[in-house]
């Protein structure tokens, strides 16, 4: 509850900051301080210290898993603010409002990590999405940004409609909004409800809507244009925190009910995973712009994260947390560098290692982590996801794992293209001047990624405190 209340309050604080000061640095610093308070408030929840004692009527349920994801999300946002905060202030004139909207997104995140009711799922997804639509269109003078915002908004509204349809069907089947399946009492009514067709149908609709939100194929069509059109700072936020939380929602909703989706779920989920990996990886190969490549690669990464649905066990839950950390940290780092670049194509990176060796080194580590090279966090993230699949289904999952590994190998190609451009090509990349603290934070982030890559259990042990 702390996180939900504090993030909403944080949004309001940021709104009012805009009245009292126009100084961008002050606004940015206030945002960072508010975020720190939010992080602390969330950590206090671990120790049972609450701001308010609210009777949530079982609408929300807080567990270590959700709280830990909150911590990850808030930490990532903190790093994001530290690295790219200055760039947020450059998007337009409504600086305080951008930060306010980001805090509202975090409120949506904290709802989605604790919902125990379909109503809260809907509210969480909407609170998450609506600020993102706005942030996508924040660069009002840029036609691409406008187009992206409109596209995102229309597609997002459709998927929300599908979600609502699913929720309505589930409500029709069980008579309440709880995410747990109807308790099979001895009465005949309950028995009928369990065998009903409405439940799988409703779950399927919700499933599709969530697939849309996490940008899995075949519902990925909005991703490249939206990620490409949105101001780069906000793409960074959208592609990481806002996306990873979709998988958390998936886990909460489907961990006990995946079987109710019907026997076809055995086919649907592997199909979605393979299609997502295929489309994400293959299309990313042909991109000329690093930003667009990252958009497709984020689809590909979603394919790996979808393993959480396939295996649906303890390892996959741990894996998704690790994956969120690895993916969010690395992507935030890459985007922080991308924003500083003038030319977003691969050629724009030519010779970056000569000009800015530290930044190039950090970028390399982030890219290696995304590619899943050992000794980086990304390796263990992928490892956990694949391991969970084997644990869940044994030999039957082997072919899926092999396919995933093959696609991971494909992904190495386009990640290494950036590295190759930075180190082995001559050129004079135009990069905005960066101060020392930017480089320090970037290197610290790279160090964290390597540290997690060496000792992944350190992160996961948090779960069992």
């Amino acid at each position, binding site marked *: 509850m702390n996180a*939900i209340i504090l993030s*909403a309050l944080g*949004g*309001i604080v940021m*709104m009012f900051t805009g009245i009292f000061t126009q100084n961008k640095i002050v606004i940015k610093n206030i945002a960072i301080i508010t975020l720190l308070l939010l992080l602390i408030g969330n950590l206090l929840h671990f120790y049972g210290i609450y701001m308010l004692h*609210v009777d*949530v*009527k079982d*609408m*929300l349920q807080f567990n270590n898993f959700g709280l830990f994801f909150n911590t990850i999300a808030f930490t990532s946002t903190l790093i994001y603010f530290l690295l790219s905060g200055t760039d947020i202030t450059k998007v*337009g*004139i*409504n600086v305080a*409002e*951008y930060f*306010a*909207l980001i805090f*509202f997104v975090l*409120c949506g995140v904290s*709802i989605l990590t604790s919902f125990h*009711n379909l*109503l*809260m799922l809907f*509210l969480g997804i*909407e*609170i998450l999405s*609506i*600020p993102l*639509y*706005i942030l996508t*269109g*924040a660069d*009002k*003078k840029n036609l691409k940004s406008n187009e992206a915002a409109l596209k995102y908004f229309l597609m997002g509204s459709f998927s929300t409609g599908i979600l609502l349809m699913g929720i309505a069907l589930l409500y*029709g*089947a069980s008579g309440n909004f709880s995410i747990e399946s109807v308790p099979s009492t001895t009465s005949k009514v309950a028995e*009928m*409800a369990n*065998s*009903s*067709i*409405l439940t799988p*149908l409703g779950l399927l609709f919700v499933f599709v809507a969530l697939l849309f939100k996490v940008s899995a194929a075949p519902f990925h069509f909005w991703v490249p244009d939206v990620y490409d059109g949105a101001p780069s700072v906000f793409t960074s936020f959208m592609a990481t925190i806002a996306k990873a939380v979709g998988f958390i929602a998936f886990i909460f909703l489907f961990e006990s009910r995946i079987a109710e989706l019907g026997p076809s779920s055995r086919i649907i989920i592997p199909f979605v995973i393979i299609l997502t990996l295929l489309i994400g990886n293959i299309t990313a190969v042909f991109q000329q712009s690093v930003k667009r490549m990252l958009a497709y690669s984020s689809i590909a990464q979603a394919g790996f994260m979808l393993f959480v649905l396939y295996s649906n066990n303890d390892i996959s839950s741990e894996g998704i947390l690790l994956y969120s950390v690895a993916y969010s940290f690395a992507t935030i780092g890459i985007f922080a560098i991308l924003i500083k670049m003038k030319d977003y194509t691969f050629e724009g990176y030519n010779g970056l290692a000569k000009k800015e060796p530290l930044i190039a080194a950090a970028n390399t580590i982030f890219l290696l982590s995304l590619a899943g090279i050992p000794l980086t966090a990304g390796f263990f993230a992928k490892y956990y996801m694949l391991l969970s699949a084997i644990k869940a289904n044994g030999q039957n999952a082997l072919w899926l794992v092999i396919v995933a590994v093959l696609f991971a190998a494909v992904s190495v190609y386009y990640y290494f293209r950036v590295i190759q451009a930075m180190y082995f090509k001559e050129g004079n990349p135009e990069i905005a001047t960066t101060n020392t603290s930017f480089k320090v934070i970037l290197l610290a982030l790279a160090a964290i990624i390597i540290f997690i890559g060496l000792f992944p259990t350190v992160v996961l042990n948090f779960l069992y405190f």
Partner: protein
Amino acid sequence: MNAIEILFWLLSALAIISAMMVLLSKNPVHSVLWLIAVFFAISGHYILLNAQFLAIVNIIVYAGAIMVLFLFVIMLMNLNKESEPKRNFWRILIGIISGGSLLMILVSLIRQATEINNKNALMESGNIGLIKTLGKLLFSDYVVPFEISSVLFLSAMVGAVVIGKKE
């Protein structure tokens, strides 16, 4: 067939025909007006179910506010038959096939659904839709979503200001 049944069939027919007309009208303004007719028909159904509050809120929010803003935008954009893009025949065919398949699956599934079969709706009785019952539920069992939805509206409002403000 009593008066309620007659009303039910009339309203259903009105709702379905209007919904079809929303899609079939060439002129977007006509579509919006048909959509308002759909909302009216649905509100009529709510009243038959003794959910007057829901009926009225449906009219206030959808017909009175959202559709009026729709009309606003569409009328000012001056869209008409000439500016409508040409449709590709194959695209229409594909749309009809995929939409039709979905419709078929949904209809056939819902026909099997045990909850719906051979059940009648409570007409003109029951107090679930009354404002008193709704209010009490909203402030007891559903108070958390009710309050949290304020964050949703706040963020939407901030967003509207960000988009609408002159730079």
